């Protein structure tokens, strides 16, 4: 190479050579990638009866007419208080996964403890085609596709209809109008194009978008033409709270057509699922 001043320098080539020495490094990289992938894999653990039904069906799918997914502590609390409070629901499975925010137990077969963030499945005893999923753990973006494929892949597409209830902070709701305190919490809906019925609340306005598990489920339903409706509840409280849970009540109209629901709810039952944060109540006077 000739330099500016006229001398000639010998330059080392920066071309990559296909050497045998590099193979080990590549193997190591591949190995590390594989390990990370295995660690982050999403596993569904079904109870023995459901695992048996899956095997018995030719296509490894369950017959399901309605799948109700609750994403977030308030949505899950609403289902626990208003739907799962009768004795006719069986826990039939859970999803075990690991990511930086959701360090699930390393052994998949152990069911999560009650109160821990987890992803649980329940099936109604009298109407086994109705499945409820409560998801309170964080599912990383790279795991969402796997979760959706594995869970919805276990269910027969024909006759399936999906409802998703999801929580979101109202700070993420974009609107040109000022939101008065009395308006919060409130519901907004989104549907897949296969969903025919009327949603029970206004549709989510632009430019608001969904992210995370609700978005993954709704996208899957849109692609596979499964009727799906999503109710997003915007709330200004960060912990499970009974007023936010009551905002989901319009969904009870659809749910009561599927399963028998407890007609009235005592305040004690609701209080069990809502955390009355003492710190919060002393912070503001």
């Amino acid at each position: 190479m000739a330099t500016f001043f006229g001398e000639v320098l010998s330059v080392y080539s920066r071309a990559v050579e296909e050497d045998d020495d590099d193979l080990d490094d590549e193997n190591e990289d591949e190995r590390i990638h594989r390990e990370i992938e295995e660690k982050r894999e999403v596993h569904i653990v079904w109870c023995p009866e459901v695992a048996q039904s899956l095997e018995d069906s030719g296509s490894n799918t369950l017959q399901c007419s309605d799948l109700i997914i609750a994403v977030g502590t308030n949505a899950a609390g609403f289902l626990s208080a208003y739907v799962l409070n009768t004795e006719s629901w069986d826990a039939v499975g859970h999803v075990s996964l690991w990511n930086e925010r959701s360090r699930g137990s390393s052994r998949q077969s152990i069911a999560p403890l009650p109160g821990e963030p987890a992803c649980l499945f329940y099936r109604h005893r009298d109407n086994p085609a109705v499945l409820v999923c409560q998801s309170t753990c964080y599912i990383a973006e790279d795991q969402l596709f796997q979760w959706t494929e594995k869970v919805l892949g276990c269910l027969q597409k024909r006759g399936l209809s999906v409802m998703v209830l999801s929580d979101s902070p109202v700070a993420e709701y974009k609107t040109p109008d000022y939101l008065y305190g009395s308006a919060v919490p409130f519901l907004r809906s989104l549907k897949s194009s296969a969903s025919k019925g009327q949603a029970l609340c206004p549709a989510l306005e632009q430019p608001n978008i969904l992210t995370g598990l609700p978005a993954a489920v709704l996208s899957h339903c849109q692609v596979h033409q499964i009727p799906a409706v999503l109710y997003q509840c915007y709330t200004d409280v960060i912990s499970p709270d009974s007023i936010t849970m009551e905002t989901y009540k319009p969904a009870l109209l659809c749910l009561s057509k599927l399963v028998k629901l407890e007609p009235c709810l005592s305040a004690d039952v609701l209080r069990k699922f809502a955390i009355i944060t003492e710190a919060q109540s002393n912070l503001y006077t």
Partner: protein
Amino acid sequence: MSIYDRAITVFSPDGHLFQVEYAQEAVKKGSTAVGIRGKDIVVLGVEKKSVAKLQEERTVRKICALDEHVCMAFAGLTADARIVINRARVECQSHRLTVEDPVTVEYITRHIATLKQRYTQSNGRRPFGISALIVGFDYDGTPRLYQTDPSGTYHAWKANAIGRSAKTVREFLEKNYTDEAIATDNEAIKLAIKALLEVVQSGGKNIDLAVIRRNQPLKLLESKEIETLVAEIEKEKEDEVEKKKQKKST
């Protein structure tokens, strides 16, 4: 959210100080307080906070005396209020010692508001998350009601409300604050209770009331007195309804 809402000392391109505006949202998380300026009386009414079972109720107070003739009610962050109240109390006494006169309500309000404004222009400090209603009598006997907010502004009012459902209460006051409504001390107190009953659930037992009469110290009403007044108000409402029914039938 926009990138101009993190630091207190940064204006947004359209002139907002977002941190100050967010501090005003913190005020809305506190329960409602209402202030009424009568002819010979000033009234402060607050919605009592629900107290935990093992908590001493009397240590959870929204109405505090700043001096013998001035008191204030606040809405917002409890700890911030404590700091502001302490500084105001010290200033009241310092003023008495220095100038040998009690503070005027406007003076102490200006002091509190200046303190709050300082915290909106300082690096590394956030604004106080409280609004205050300051009431009292000046030494010339004039009743005063002032309101301050986290930005450090203060204004005099005839009647105002702060906190959770302040807008509803203010609208009620705009309709119902008339010279007749505050003609007597009792009427002024009842107006404050009526305003609070618009937004307080479960009636009189969730209301705290304080009054200052000219040349008299601050008086916190007992719950029995409040219940009696609430009963009077209910009766008056029923009488109104009866009268209207009779008018319709004749």
